[in-house]
């Protein structure tokens, strides 16, 4: 075991975080001197890439930013462009968008729970090792995940980078009978999702809490996914159009990603725990019951318990998908006409990892003049670093290998989508 007062710890290729990045921890005189999470942020590339493109293109182009949450990028892009063009999409088209988004939540949450996060809690180095011992669990996860995949395939045209989404709606909408096979799949998935909540509730959660302000979309009457007003646990509330007045992004020397903070406040967190804390009352009765049985209270401020929230949200997404299918009536046309115009538009939706904000400026020819994309991971970065600073400070007696492993696990609590982001995630702990 290492007990040096100064040290640097490097963790290379931080596994099981989507994508790649780097983390550096510096310890001096027995105290944590610096914690830096380095993320190379692709949205900056895409913002430049989008300029000069037709206003109809951002949903398809930005969907390529992340293979795990393409629907989120499509939905935020559509919302922003439709806002710019003065078109409001409602009714069956909006319901189908929510259904598509439910598919992505199911897929993304289940992937994270079963293949990325659960091995940490159960002491397995990887999902592969877990599968060797508990094939039944991994099979259940894959079956649940596939239910989300099936929704994406049916509505999106394909599971990865769905091609059926367009500004104003869809290129083609399904007939009600085409959705019927999904019902059986989703009924089975609901059982699997409830079993998942019960399973993860039994994990051993380290005692760790934060007091960051939490930020999520809210929609009275339902759990916000594809639309809503921004709310925070500090009592703020504002529409997506005012997002940039309240969320300030700034460059930090160690990252190409921008760090976000709430104006006049500081670091904050968005994502499942924020959604749960702000919107728990809008969960379905069954999801609420599952959360309560899993020991979840009114809020979630232990990052380790985020795995339970993801499981509860998966129950909700499956139930919501079933409801949307049961109530589905095809729209008269699969999309609304959205004529381009010179304007600026704003859109925010709840990606599986938190609020995804888009802003586009359009000219009179319908070309994109400016683009701004704020993904959830870059919003959370400052708060994650702050948490890790305290997390490491309480574990300096651990040797480098164990500290590295525990840091990896701690980072995975936040499910950072560094694939929205980067190449390898290397972890460095400098103990000199």
């Amino acid at each position: 075991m290492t007990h040096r007062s100064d040290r640097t710890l490097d963790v290379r290729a931080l596994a099981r975080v989507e994508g790649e990045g780097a983390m550096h921890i510096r310890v001096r005189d027995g105290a944590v001197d610096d914690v830096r999470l380095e993320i190379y942020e692709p949205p900056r590339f895409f913002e430049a890439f989008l300029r000069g493109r037709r206003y109809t293109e951002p949903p398809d182009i930005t969907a390529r930013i992340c293979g795990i949450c393409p629907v989120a990028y499509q939905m935020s892009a559509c919302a922003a462009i439709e806002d710019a063009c003065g078109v409001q999409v409602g009714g069956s088209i909006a319901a189908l968008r929510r259904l598509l988004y439910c598919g992505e939540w199911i897929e993304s949450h289940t992937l994270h729970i079963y293949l990325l996060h659960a091995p940490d809690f159960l002491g397995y180095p990887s999902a592969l090792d877990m599968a060797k011992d508990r094939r039944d669990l991994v099979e259940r996860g894959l079956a649940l995940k596939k239910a989300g995949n099936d929704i994406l395939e049916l509505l999106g045209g394909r599971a990865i980078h769905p091609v059926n989404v367009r500004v104003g709606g869809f290129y083609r909408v399904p007939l009600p009978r085409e959705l019927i096979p999904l019902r059986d799949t989703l009924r089975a998935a609901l059982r699997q999702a409830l079993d998942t909540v019960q399973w993860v509730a039994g994990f051993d959660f380290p005692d760790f809490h934060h007091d960051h302000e939490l930020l999520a979309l809210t929609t009275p009457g339902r759990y916000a996914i594809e639309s809503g007003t921004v709310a925070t646990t500090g009592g703020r509330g504002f529409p997506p159009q005012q997002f940039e007045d309240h969320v300030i992004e700034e460059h930090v020397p160690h990252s190409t990603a921008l760090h976000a903070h709430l104006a006049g406040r500081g670091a904050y967190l968005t994502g499942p725990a924020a959604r749960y804390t702000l919107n728990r009352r809008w969960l379905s009765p069954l999801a609420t019951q599952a959360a309560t049985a899993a020991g979840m209270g009114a809020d979630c401020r232990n990052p380790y318990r985020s795995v339970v929230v993801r499981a509860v949200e998966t129950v909700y997404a499956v139930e919501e998908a079933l409801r949307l299918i049961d109530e589905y009536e095809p729209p008269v046309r699969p999309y609304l006409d959205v004529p381009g115009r010179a304007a600026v538009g704003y859109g925010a939706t709840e990606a599986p990892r938190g609020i995804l904000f888009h802003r586009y400026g359009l000219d009179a020819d319908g070309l994109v003049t400016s683009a701004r994309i704020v993904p959830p991971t870059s919003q959370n970065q400052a708060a994650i670093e702050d948490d890790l600073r305290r997390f490491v400070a309480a574990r300096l007696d651990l040797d480098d290998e164990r500290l590295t492993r525990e840091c990896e696990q701690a980072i995975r609590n936040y499910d950072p989508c560094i694939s929205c982001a980067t190449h390898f995630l290397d972890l460095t702990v400098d103990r000199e």
Partner: protein
Amino acid sequence: MTTASSGRRVVIGVGNEYRRDDGFGPLVVAALADRRTREPGLAAVELRTSDGEPARLLDLWAGADLAVVVDAVRDGGDAPGRRYELVLDELDGLGGDASASSHGIGLGSTVALARVLDRLPRRLVVLAVSGHEFGFGVELTPQVAAMVQPVARRAAELLDLRDP
């Protein structure tokens, strides 16, 4: 491993077309789609793209008679465009998973996971090319771009199709 013959053949291009050389796999699939307009035999072949996310890969190739996976790799060398052809048994050792693709579990681990879960295709071949640039952008390194058509031809051979 699946033992019954399904007759199903699938080509999976792994990668992200906006990450320079990582777009190699999808570009090979696009080249095969173009060949399909001239080669009716390709009509029965599934052409898919993937970001490499393991559960989706398992779904794409499970039950197939033949799965050809096309991907760009980092081989640590300085010869972009170098070709590799790996078959199933050679893939289990690829546990290091150093890939530019945006996924948390690499191809080697995915193959191992598929083996544990009995979700391997009957025959799996990986056609890989060493990449050089994996930053953001759509242009491939010239040596990698030059391999798109040759690898598409090799995929067609593996699919037992006549090479025009």
